[in-house]
Protein backbone atom coordinates (compact mmCIF):
# COMPACT_ATOMS: atom_id res chain seq x y z
CA UNK A 1 0.00 0.00 0.00
CA UNK A 2 2.76 2.42 0.95
CA UNK A 3 4.57 1.46 -2.25
CA UNK A 4 1.65 2.52 -4.42
CA UNK A 5 1.28 5.85 -2.63
CA UNK A 6 5.02 6.33 -3.01
CA UNK A 7 4.83 5.83 -6.76
CA UNK A 8 1.86 8.12 -7.14
CA UNK A 9 3.67 10.78 -5.13
CA UNK A 10 6.73 10.42 -7.35
CA UNK A 11 4.74 10.72 -10.55
CA UNK A 12 2.90 13.71 -9.13
CA UNK A 13 6.21 15.41 -8.32
CA UNK A 14 7.45 14.61 -11.80
CA UNK A 15 4.45 15.95 -13.67
CA UNK A 16 4.23 19.11 -11.56
CA UNK A 17 7.36 20.43 -13.25
CA UNK A 18 6.00 19.83 -16.73
CA UNK A 19 2.92 22.04 -16.72
CA UNK A 20 1.39 23.03 -13.38
CA UNK A 21 4.61 24.43 -11.92
CA UNK A 22 6.61 24.77 -15.10
CA UNK A 23 9.66 26.74 -13.95
CA UNK A 24 9.85 29.07 -16.94
CA UNK A 25 6.28 29.47 -18.11
CA UNK A 26 4.56 29.43 -14.72
CA UNK A 27 7.03 30.50 -12.07
CA UNK A 28 9.04 32.85 -14.34
CA UNK A 29 12.34 31.49 -13.03
CA UNK A 30 15.56 31.27 -14.99
CA UNK A 31 14.67 33.97 -17.48
CA UNK A 32 18.23 34.88 -18.46
CA UNK A 33 19.18 31.61 -20.20
CA UNK A 34 15.64 31.26 -21.52
CA UNK A 35 15.92 34.49 -23.44
CA UNK A 36 19.60 34.35 -24.28
CA UNK A 37 20.12 30.91 -25.81
CA UNK A 38 16.87 30.42 -27.68
CA UNK A 39 17.84 31.94 -31.04
CA UNK A 40 18.05 28.36 -32.37
CA UNK A 41 16.97 24.92 -31.15
CA UNK A 42 20.42 23.34 -30.92
CA UNK A 43 21.98 25.67 -28.31
CA UNK A 44 18.67 25.65 -26.43
CA UNK A 45 18.80 21.86 -26.23
CA UNK A 46 22.44 21.85 -25.13
CA UNK A 47 21.63 24.38 -22.44
CA UNK A 48 18.68 22.28 -21.23
CA UNK A 49 20.80 19.14 -20.98
CA UNK A 50 23.39 21.06 -18.93
CA UNK A 51 20.67 22.39 -16.65
CA UNK A 52 19.17 18.92 -16.16
CA UNK A 53 22.61 17.54 -15.29
CA UNK A 54 23.43 20.30 -12.81
CA UNK A 55 19.94 20.29 -11.30
CA UNK A 56 19.92 16.52 -10.76
CA UNK A 57 23.42 16.38 -9.29
CA UNK A 58 22.94 19.36 -7.00
CA UNK A 59 19.56 18.05 -5.84
CA UNK A 60 21.16 14.70 -4.98
CA UNK A 61 24.01 16.30 -3.04
CA UNK A 62 21.79 18.82 -1.25
CA UNK A 63 19.32 16.08 -0.33
CA UNK A 64 22.14 13.94 1.08
CA UNK A 65 23.56 16.71 3.22
CA UNK A 66 20.26 18.29 4.21
CA UNK A 67 20.54 17.18 7.83
CA UNK A 68 24.03 18.59 8.24
CA UNK A 69 23.22 22.10 7.02
CA UNK A 70 23.25 25.09 9.31
CA UNK A 71 20.36 27.37 8.35
CA UNK A 72 22.39 30.55 7.88
CA UNK A 73 25.02 28.84 5.76
CA UNK A 74 22.71 26.83 3.55
CA UNK A 75 22.44 29.26 0.61
CA UNK A 76 26.21 29.47 0.46
CA UNK A 77 26.50 25.67 0.50
CA UNK A 78 23.88 25.38 -2.26
CA UNK A 79 25.73 27.89 -4.42
CA UNK A 80 29.09 26.19 -3.93
CA UNK A 81 27.61 22.77 -4.77
CA UNK A 82 26.01 24.18 -7.90
CA UNK A 83 29.19 26.01 -8.92
CA UNK A 84 31.14 22.76 -8.70
CA UNK A 85 28.77 20.88 -11.01
CA UNK A 86 28.57 23.82 -13.41
CA UNK A 87 32.37 23.75 -13.66
CA UNK A 88 32.17 20.05 -14.55
CA UNK A 89 29.55 20.70 -17.23
CA UNK A 90 31.51 23.65 -18.61
CA UNK A 91 34.76 21.68 -18.86
CA UNK A 92 32.89 18.80 -20.52
CA UNK A 93 31.42 21.14 -23.15
CA UNK A 94 34.81 22.79 -23.76
CA UNK A 95 36.41 19.39 -24.32
CA UNK A 96 33.79 17.65 -26.44
CA UNK A 97 31.72 20.43 -28.05
CA UNK A 98 34.12 23.40 -28.34
CA UNK A 99 31.99 25.10 -31.00
CA UNK A 100 28.86 25.01 -28.86
CA UNK A 101 30.89 26.11 -25.85
CA UNK A 102 32.04 29.32 -27.55
CA UNK A 103 28.54 29.95 -28.84
CA UNK A 104 26.94 29.67 -25.40
CA UNK A 105 29.83 31.64 -23.89
CA UNK A 106 29.17 32.91 -20.39
CA UNK A 107 25.65 31.54 -20.27
CA UNK A 108 26.89 28.10 -19.15
CA UNK A 109 28.67 29.45 -16.04
CA UNK A 110 25.63 31.63 -15.47
CA UNK A 111 23.69 28.43 -14.64
CA UNK A 112 25.19 28.98 -11.16
CA UNK A 113 22.87 31.90 -10.53
CA UNK A 114 19.91 30.32 -12.34
CA UNK A 115 17.07 30.71 -9.88
CA UNK A 116 15.52 27.37 -10.89
CA UNK A 117 18.37 25.33 -9.44
CA UNK A 118 18.80 27.22 -6.20
CA UNK A 119 15.01 27.40 -5.89
CA UNK A 120 14.60 23.63 -6.19
CA UNK A 121 17.46 23.03 -3.74
CA UNK A 122 15.70 25.25 -1.23
CA UNK A 123 12.09 24.21 -1.89
CA UNK A 124 12.50 20.49 -2.51
CA UNK A 125 15.90 18.88 -2.00
CA UNK A 126 16.62 20.38 1.41
CA UNK A 127 13.34 18.95 2.74
CA UNK A 128 12.91 15.62 0.95
CA UNK A 129 14.63 12.27 0.51
CA UNK A 130 16.89 11.43 -2.38
CA UNK A 131 14.29 9.68 -4.60
CA UNK A 132 11.85 12.58 -4.53
CA UNK A 133 14.68 15.04 -5.15
CA UNK A 134 15.88 13.18 -8.23
CA UNK A 135 12.39 12.88 -9.68
CA UNK A 136 11.70 16.53 -8.93
CA UNK A 137 14.94 17.55 -10.67
CA UNK A 138 14.07 15.49 -13.74
CA UNK A 139 10.55 16.88 -13.91
CA UNK A 140 11.63 20.48 -13.48
CA UNK A 141 14.50 19.98 -15.93
CA UNK A 142 12.14 18.52 -18.51
CA UNK A 143 9.73 21.40 -17.99
CA UNK A 144 12.61 23.80 -18.57
CA UNK A 145 13.57 21.89 -21.74
CA UNK A 146 10.02 22.02 -23.08
CA UNK A 147 9.79 25.77 -22.51
CA UNK A 148 13.18 26.46 -24.07
CA UNK A 149 12.57 24.27 -27.10
CA UNK A 150 9.13 25.77 -27.76
CA UNK A 151 10.56 29.27 -27.67
CA UNK A 152 13.63 28.30 -29.69
CA UNK A 153 11.69 26.51 -32.41
CA UNK A 154 9.35 29.47 -32.92
CA UNK A 155 12.29 31.86 -33.10
CA UNK A 156 14.43 29.66 -35.35
CA UNK A 157 11.52 28.94 -37.68
CA UNK A 158 10.63 32.60 -38.15
CA UNK A 159 14.17 33.98 -38.24
CA UNK A 160 15.71 31.47 -40.68
CA UNK A 161 12.89 29.26 -41.96
CA UNK A 162 14.61 26.20 -40.51
CA UNK A 163 14.09 23.96 -37.50
CA UNK A 164 17.07 22.09 -36.13
CA UNK A 165 18.87 23.36 -39.25
CA UNK A 166 16.46 21.58 -41.63
CA UNK A 167 14.67 23.87 -44.07
CA UNK A 168 10.93 23.59 -43.50
CA UNK A 169 9.52 26.82 -44.86
CA UNK A 170 8.60 27.23 -48.55
CA UNK A 171 10.97 29.18 -50.80
CA UNK A 172 9.00 32.41 -50.89
CA UNK A 173 9.23 32.77 -47.10
CA UNK A 174 11.05 35.93 -46.11
CA UNK A 175 13.04 35.40 -42.86
CA UNK A 176 12.21 37.76 -40.02
CA UNK A 177 15.63 38.92 -38.96
CA UNK A 178 14.23 40.57 -35.82
CA UNK A 179 13.30 37.17 -34.34
CA UNK A 180 16.94 36.25 -33.80
CA UNK A 181 17.62 39.55 -31.99
CA UNK A 182 16.78 40.36 -28.35
CA UNK A 183 13.43 41.85 -29.32
CA UNK A 184 12.34 38.50 -30.79
CA UNK A 185 13.15 36.73 -27.54
CA UNK A 186 11.18 39.13 -25.34
CA UNK A 187 8.14 39.45 -27.58
CA UNK A 188 7.88 35.70 -28.35
CA UNK A 189 8.09 34.77 -24.67
CA UNK A 190 5.52 37.43 -23.82
CA UNK A 191 3.12 36.07 -26.41
CA UNK A 192 3.67 32.46 -25.28
CA UNK A 193 2.88 33.47 -21.69
CA UNK A 194 -0.25 35.23 -22.95
CA UNK A 195 -1.26 32.08 -24.82
CA UNK A 196 -0.76 30.02 -21.63
CA UNK A 197 -3.07 32.42 -19.80
CA UNK A 198 -5.76 31.98 -22.46
CA UNK A 199 -5.50 28.17 -22.30
CA UNK A 200 -5.68 28.03 -18.49
CA UNK A 201 -8.64 30.38 -18.45
CA UNK A 202 -10.54 28.20 -20.96
CA UNK A 203 -9.88 25.07 -18.91
CA UNK A 204 -10.80 26.64 -15.61
Amino acid sequence: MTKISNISKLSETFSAGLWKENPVLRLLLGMCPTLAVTAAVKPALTMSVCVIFVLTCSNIVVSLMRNLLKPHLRILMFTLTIATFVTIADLFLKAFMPEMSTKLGPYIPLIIVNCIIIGRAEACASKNGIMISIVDALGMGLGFTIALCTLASVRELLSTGKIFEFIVMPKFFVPWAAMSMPVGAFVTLGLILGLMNVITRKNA
Partner: protein
Amino acid sequence: MDTFLVLILSFISIVVVNNLVLTKFLGICPFLGVSGRIDMAFGMGMAVTFVVTLSGTITWMIDHWVLMEWGLEVTRYVCFILVIAGAVQLVEMYLRKFFPTLYESFGIFLPLITTNCAILGLCLFINLWEINSLVEAVVLSFGAGVGFTLAICIMAGIRENLELSDVPAALRGAPITLITAGILTLAFMGFAGMIK
Protein backbone atom coordinates in the same frame (compact mmCIF):
# COMPACT_ATOMS: atom_id res chain seq x y z
CA MET B 1 45.24 60.76 -23.73
CA ASP B 2 44.68 57.59 -25.70
CA THR B 3 44.04 55.46 -22.65
CA PHE B 4 41.59 58.06 -21.39
CA LEU B 5 39.67 57.85 -24.69
CA VAL B 6 39.59 54.06 -24.47
CA LEU B 7 38.15 54.28 -20.97
CA ILE B 8 35.40 56.69 -22.03
CA LEU B 9 34.55 54.54 -25.03
CA SER B 10 34.34 51.36 -22.98
CA PHE B 11 32.15 53.14 -20.43
CA ILE B 12 29.69 54.29 -23.12
CA SER B 13 29.80 50.89 -24.75
CA ILE B 14 28.85 49.01 -21.58
CA VAL B 15 26.14 51.51 -20.64
CA VAL B 16 24.24 51.75 -23.91
CA VAL B 17 25.70 49.61 -26.71
CA ASN B 18 26.25 46.40 -24.76
CA ASN B 19 23.70 47.12 -22.04
CA LEU B 20 23.66 43.99 -19.90
CA VAL B 21 19.91 43.87 -19.40
CA LEU B 22 18.68 44.73 -22.86
CA THR B 23 21.28 43.12 -25.13
CA LYS B 24 22.80 40.36 -22.99
CA PHE B 25 19.65 39.32 -21.09
CA LEU B 26 21.35 39.53 -17.71
CA GLY B 27 19.51 40.54 -14.56
CA ILE B 28 16.09 39.94 -16.06
CA CYS B 29 14.57 38.68 -12.80
CA PRO B 30 14.88 41.96 -10.85
CA PHE B 31 14.21 43.82 -14.10
CA LEU B 32 10.77 42.20 -14.28
CA GLY B 33 10.22 41.87 -10.54
CA VAL B 34 11.20 45.20 -9.02
CA SER B 35 10.53 47.59 -11.87
CA GLY B 36 7.01 48.45 -10.67
CA ARG B 37 7.89 51.81 -9.12
CA ILE B 38 10.61 54.26 -10.05
CA ASP B 39 11.98 54.89 -6.55
CA MET B 40 12.33 51.16 -5.82
CA ALA B 41 13.90 50.59 -9.20
CA PHE B 42 16.40 53.35 -8.55
CA GLY B 43 17.27 51.92 -5.12
CA MET B 44 17.84 48.50 -6.65
CA GLY B 45 19.96 50.06 -9.39
CA MET B 46 22.13 51.86 -6.85
CA ALA B 47 22.64 48.71 -4.78
CA VAL B 48 23.55 46.70 -7.88
CA THR B 49 25.93 49.42 -9.11
CA PHE B 50 27.76 49.36 -5.82
CA VAL B 51 28.07 45.58 -5.59
CA VAL B 52 28.95 45.13 -9.25
CA THR B 53 31.76 47.72 -9.09
CA LEU B 54 33.16 46.08 -5.99
CA SER B 55 32.92 42.49 -7.15
CA GLY B 56 34.00 43.25 -10.73
CA THR B 57 37.19 44.82 -9.38
CA ILE B 58 37.90 42.11 -6.82
CA THR B 59 37.26 39.22 -9.22
CA TRP B 60 39.57 40.85 -11.78
CA MET B 61 42.31 41.09 -9.17
CA ILE B 62 41.82 37.51 -7.97
CA ASP B 63 41.62 36.21 -11.51
CA HIS B 64 44.79 37.93 -12.70
CA TRP B 65 46.96 37.93 -9.63
CA VAL B 66 46.03 34.63 -8.00
CA LEU B 67 44.26 32.19 -10.31
CA MET B 68 46.25 32.87 -13.49
CA GLU B 69 49.55 33.06 -11.62
CA TRP B 70 49.11 29.63 -10.09
CA GLY B 71 47.11 27.96 -12.88
CA LEU B 72 43.96 27.57 -10.84
CA GLU B 73 41.50 28.63 -13.58
CA VAL B 74 39.37 25.55 -12.92
CA THR B 75 38.17 27.03 -9.66
CA ARG B 76 37.24 30.34 -11.32
CA TYR B 77 33.46 30.02 -11.03
CA VAL B 78 33.58 28.88 -7.42
CA CYS B 79 35.86 31.80 -6.55
CA PHE B 80 33.73 34.34 -8.41
CA ILE B 81 30.51 33.31 -6.70
CA LEU B 82 32.25 33.34 -3.31
CA VAL B 83 33.55 36.85 -3.94
CA ILE B 84 30.11 38.09 -4.96
CA ALA B 85 28.39 36.50 -1.95
CA GLY B 86 31.12 37.95 0.26
CA ALA B 87 30.83 41.41 -1.29
CA VAL B 88 27.09 41.44 -0.74
CA GLN B 89 27.55 40.40 2.90
CA LEU B 90 30.18 43.09 3.37
CA VAL B 91 28.01 45.82 1.86
CA GLU B 92 25.10 44.67 3.98
CA MET B 93 27.11 44.78 7.21
CA TYR B 94 28.71 48.12 6.34
CA LEU B 95 25.41 49.77 5.47
CA ARG B 96 23.68 48.42 8.56
CA LYS B 97 26.41 49.82 10.78
CA PHE B 98 27.05 53.20 9.18
CA PHE B 99 23.99 54.10 7.07
CA PRO B 100 21.01 52.51 8.82
CA THR B 101 18.44 54.60 6.91
CA LEU B 102 19.88 53.58 3.55
CA TYR B 103 19.98 49.98 4.77
CA GLU B 104 16.30 50.14 5.68
CA SER B 105 15.37 51.48 2.26
CA PHE B 106 17.28 48.71 0.42
CA GLY B 107 15.54 46.06 2.48
CA ILE B 108 15.23 42.70 0.78
CA PHE B 109 17.08 43.83 -2.35
CA LEU B 110 20.52 43.48 -0.86
CA PRO B 111 20.63 39.71 -0.25
CA LEU B 112 18.81 39.17 -3.54
CA ILE B 113 21.71 40.74 -5.42
CA THR B 114 23.83 37.63 -4.85
CA THR B 115 21.73 35.72 -7.35
CA ASN B 116 21.50 38.62 -9.79
CA CYS B 117 22.95 37.25 -13.01
CA ALA B 118 24.11 40.70 -14.11
CA ILE B 119 26.88 40.66 -11.53
CA LEU B 120 28.31 37.21 -12.17
CA GLY B 121 27.70 37.83 -15.88
CA LEU B 122 29.78 40.99 -15.86
CA CYS B 123 32.65 39.27 -14.04
CA LEU B 124 32.57 36.53 -16.69
CA PHE B 125 32.39 39.03 -19.55
CA ILE B 126 35.43 40.89 -18.21
CA ASN B 127 37.21 37.57 -18.23
CA LEU B 128 35.89 36.71 -21.72
CA TRP B 129 36.79 40.06 -23.31
CA GLU B 130 40.32 39.66 -21.94
CA ILE B 131 40.45 43.02 -20.22
CA ASN B 132 44.04 43.44 -19.16
CA SER B 133 44.12 46.65 -17.17
CA LEU B 134 42.66 47.08 -13.73
CA VAL B 135 41.37 50.60 -14.46
CA GLU B 136 39.44 49.38 -17.48
CA ALA B 137 37.91 46.58 -15.42
CA VAL B 138 36.78 49.09 -12.79
CA VAL B 139 35.30 51.41 -15.43
CA LEU B 140 33.48 48.49 -17.09
CA SER B 141 32.06 47.27 -13.78
CA PHE B 142 30.84 50.71 -12.82
CA GLY B 143 29.40 51.25 -16.31
CA ALA B 144 27.55 47.94 -16.10
CA GLY B 145 25.89 49.12 -12.92
CA VAL B 146 24.93 52.44 -14.49
CA GLY B 147 23.54 50.59 -17.53
CA PHE B 148 21.47 48.36 -15.26
CA THR B 149 20.10 51.37 -13.37
CA LEU B 150 19.28 53.11 -16.64
CA ALA B 151 17.40 50.12 -18.04
CA ILE B 152 15.46 49.33 -14.86
CA CYS B 153 14.47 53.01 -14.33
CA ILE B 154 13.25 53.45 -17.92
CA MET B 155 11.28 50.24 -17.54
CA ALA B 156 9.77 51.39 -14.23
CA GLY B 157 8.71 54.67 -15.83
CA ILE B 158 6.97 52.85 -18.65
CA ARG B 159 5.28 50.42 -16.27
CA GLU B 160 3.86 53.18 -14.10
CA ASN B 161 2.03 54.44 -17.19
CA LEU B 162 1.19 50.93 -18.34
CA GLU B 163 -0.96 50.42 -15.25
CA LEU B 164 -3.37 53.06 -16.49
CA SER B 165 -3.69 51.66 -20.00
CA ASP B 166 -6.15 49.10 -21.29
CA VAL B 167 -4.23 45.84 -21.78
CA PRO B 168 -5.95 42.68 -23.16
CA ALA B 169 -6.86 40.43 -20.23
CA ALA B 170 -4.64 37.52 -21.28
CA LEU B 171 -1.56 39.72 -21.59
CA ARG B 172 -1.83 41.43 -18.20
CA GLY B 173 1.12 41.13 -15.84
CA ALA B 174 4.27 39.40 -17.00
CA PRO B 175 3.43 38.99 -20.73
CA ILE B 176 2.92 42.69 -21.43
CA THR B 177 6.04 43.52 -19.41
CA LEU B 178 8.09 41.20 -21.58
CA ILE B 179 6.64 42.64 -24.79
CA THR B 180 7.36 46.18 -23.54
CA ALA B 181 10.92 45.13 -22.73
CA GLY B 182 11.22 43.74 -26.25
CA ILE B 183 10.23 47.07 -27.77
CA LEU B 184 12.67 48.78 -25.42
CA THR B 185 15.50 46.59 -26.74
CA LEU B 186 14.61 47.78 -30.25
CA ALA B 187 15.28 51.34 -29.09
CA PHE B 188 18.63 50.32 -27.61
CA MET B 189 19.51 48.48 -30.83
CA GLY B 190 19.81 51.93 -32.39
CA PHE B 191 23.12 52.25 -30.53
CA ALA B 192 24.50 49.01 -31.98
CA GLY B 193 27.53 49.48 -34.19
CA MET B 194 28.23 52.92 -32.75
CA ILE B 195 31.24 51.50 -30.90
CA LYS B 196 32.71 48.08 -31.47
